[in-house]
């Protein structure tokens, strides 16, 4: 295969996105079906309200931080495509950050480029930003946090982490793996962390040094004390301070409307309308009466169980842990919309250099199973929503198949992954009293 330079790839991706933004304007003007996402109209209206000094929450269905509306004020002042350009630039920034992360770990140039292509040339991703969805900004911030951690900039990482949890609550799932990674054996004051590079990760795996550490029960007290390291405390305090400052500031400006629409709505959201989640029909069938507490807890159990095990098993391999956690979070969520997919698509290129999965045919099996299950669901969804057919059962079964596809992808990636903790142990690090297990 001919090699493509990263610069050419970025240039082509930028031109593609610019073309799609221009095309989107044409389609919106000349065709009944818009190219632009409905959410973009919501953002724009909220931004217009903000420009007039009003609350963005006067726009119904605006359920984001006021920061998003603030960023889009130029939509009202300059041109309505400002937001799409901003999101597409973030999209390109994600590609740049992916390359930065892979280069920090010594991944060869061609492998870097192909991994970046998995983001930049993914139809899901280049349509998301150009249609006016804000997720590329979130993805760019997640990757920037990883870069900060890899460079030992804990304060920066903590700041951006607090901000991103304020913007989009879901990154809270990364809290535990980040805290676990901030081990004194990896992070010491005045020393830059040492990264495990791509070549040596194979040697580490052979020696088993990438495996998890389990604390000897006789030394639990010492281990608990060692949890509270300077790095972990700083990270927790700063990110919490940023989160609460942003939340408190906007609560002061917009009161309960902000709290409800931007935070509480997402925490308690159960949507009976059809979506990719296996829970949608169950929620619809029970919508006329409240769920019992036991029912609510049971529905959380699979999600919590998977998250805890993935964190416990893969936290040291931070990008891989993030990828699996995000995929699992989306797959087991009570509501799944297509925009959530970019949350793990931006992390997929970070794990590709460490997978033993061949494109032929395991890779293709994952791709075709996942896309096929999604297309199958979309077919039934179309029959229900646009043809008015009674296909609730079929649509629900399609969502079960989609969960199966997500599970298959996760299991395959785990089985084919080369363990690669991001950070090496520093000299004169934290004394290791734990026992390794294979």
């Amino acid at each position, binding site marked *: 295969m001919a090699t493509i330079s990263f610069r050419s790839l970025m240039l082509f991706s930028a031109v593609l996105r610019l073309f799609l933004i221009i095309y989107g304007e044409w389609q919106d003007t000349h065709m009944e079906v818009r190219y632009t996402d409905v959410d973009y109209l919501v953002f724009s209206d909220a931004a217009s309200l903000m420009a007039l000094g009003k609350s963005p929450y006067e726009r*119904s269905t605006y359920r984001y931080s006021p920061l998003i509306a603030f960023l889009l004020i130029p939509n009202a002042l300059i041109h309505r495509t400002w937001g799409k350009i901003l999101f597409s630039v973030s999209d390109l920034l994600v590609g740049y950050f992916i390359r930065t992360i892979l280069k920090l770990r010594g991944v060869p140039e061609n*492998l870097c480029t192909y991994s970046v292509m998995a983001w930049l040339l993914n139809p899901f991703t280049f349509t998301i930003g150009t249609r006016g969805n804000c997720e590329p900004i979130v993805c760019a911030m997640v990757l920037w946090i990883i870069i900060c951690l890899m460079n030992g900039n804990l304060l920066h990482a903590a700041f951006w982490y607090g901000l991103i949890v304020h913007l989009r609550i879901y990154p809270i799932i990364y809290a535990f793996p980040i805290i676990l990674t901030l081990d004194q054996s990896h992070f010491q004051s005045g020393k830059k962390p040492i990264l495990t590079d791509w070549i040596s990760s194979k040697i580490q*795996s052979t020696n088993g040094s990438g495996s998890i550490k389990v604390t000897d029960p006789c030394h639990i007290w010492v281990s608990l004390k060692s949890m509270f390291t300077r790095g972990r405390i700083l990270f927790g305090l700063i990110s919490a301070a940023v989160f609460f400052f942003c939340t408190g500031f906007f609560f002061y400006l917009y009161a309960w409307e902000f709290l409800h629409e931007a935070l509480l709505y997402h925490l308690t959201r159960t*949507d009976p309308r059809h979506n990719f989640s296996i829970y949608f029909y169950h929620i*619809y069938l029970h919508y006329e009466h409240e769920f019992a507490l036991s029912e609510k807890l049971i529905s959380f159990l699979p*999600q919590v169980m998977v998250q805890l095990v993935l964190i416990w098993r893969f936290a040291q391999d931070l990008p891989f842990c993030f990828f699996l956690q995000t995929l699992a979070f989306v797959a087991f969520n009570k509501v799944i919309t297509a925009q959530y997919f970019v949350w793990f698509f931006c992390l997929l290129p970070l794990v590709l250099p*460490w997978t033993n999965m061949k494109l032929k045919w395991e890779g293709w099996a994952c791709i075709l199973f996942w896309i096929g299950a999604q297309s199958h669901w979309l077919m039934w969804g179309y029959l229900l929503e646009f043809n*008015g057919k009674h296909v609730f059962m079929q649509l629900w079964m399609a969502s079960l198949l989609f969960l199966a596809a997500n599970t298959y992808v996760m299991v395959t990636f785990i089985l084919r*992954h080369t363990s690669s903790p991001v950070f090496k142990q520093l000299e004169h690090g934290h004394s290791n009293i734990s026992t390794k297990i294979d």
Partner: protein
Amino acid sequence: VGNLDDSNPSSSALHGVNEFITEAYFENHASLIDSDFQGFISKEIPPEFCEVLQDKLEPVPKLSISHRHLIGEGSHRRLSSSIRLEIQPGSKFTLPAHFCDAILVERLPSGVFADPFELQHLLQRGVFTGAAVFGDTNLELPSVRSNRSIVEIHMDIGPNILSGNNNGLEINLEVPLHARYAPLGENGFSRIEFSPPDLFTRCSFEGNSHKQSCIFLSTNTSFELKAGAVVWDVPCGIKKHTGIVSVVTFFSAIVSALLIVFTAFHYSDTTGCKNLKQM
């Protein structure tokens, strides 16, 4: 209240002097009840009463529905109404700066809603001269958690009256509507019936000192007698599915979770001995 004027300054500019008949109803009522609304109409808008026009002996344009049906399939359709405008033969309007609107007030049944932002888009394209949604404008809630709403549409008929050539005219009006998730049923479909709309004519003109307008209520007895109600069958969940769906949903979630957990526990670092991906 989903008055478009409040949310979009540009639409206010389009019809800054428009007054919506329905707005006053929701100032005194929390929800839409047909009998209350009929009482409101009969109190606020006496039929064919207008001092100024009576003084001038101007004929009152009469509106009636000649045809009504739903266009499209699925959850997103358009309620099409053909409005017939009748003027007495040989009559002419002589008042200067005459401007008349046909006003269609659709009292939407439970389970159907109009999107104020979609109507705003149509307004900006000049399809209507005025449009507003009143009542429950929440776009997301299912029927069991939502209330009814009213859509009021204004269409310009003034130039057609002034032409003086027609003694009958038809205006076609399509209102985009969306179905909410219906209450659970036994047979899989929930039937929604539309009652006939309320039709008004409003004519505005320059008076001696200020702008005046008159509103006339039209009756639709001929349409109601001739045609049956417009119906919309919306797919709904079936109650007897509840048990099996809940059990299989949770079982599938648990099985998938256990598969992932099992794989993670038994993940072997020795897979690192295999060749790294060659690309």
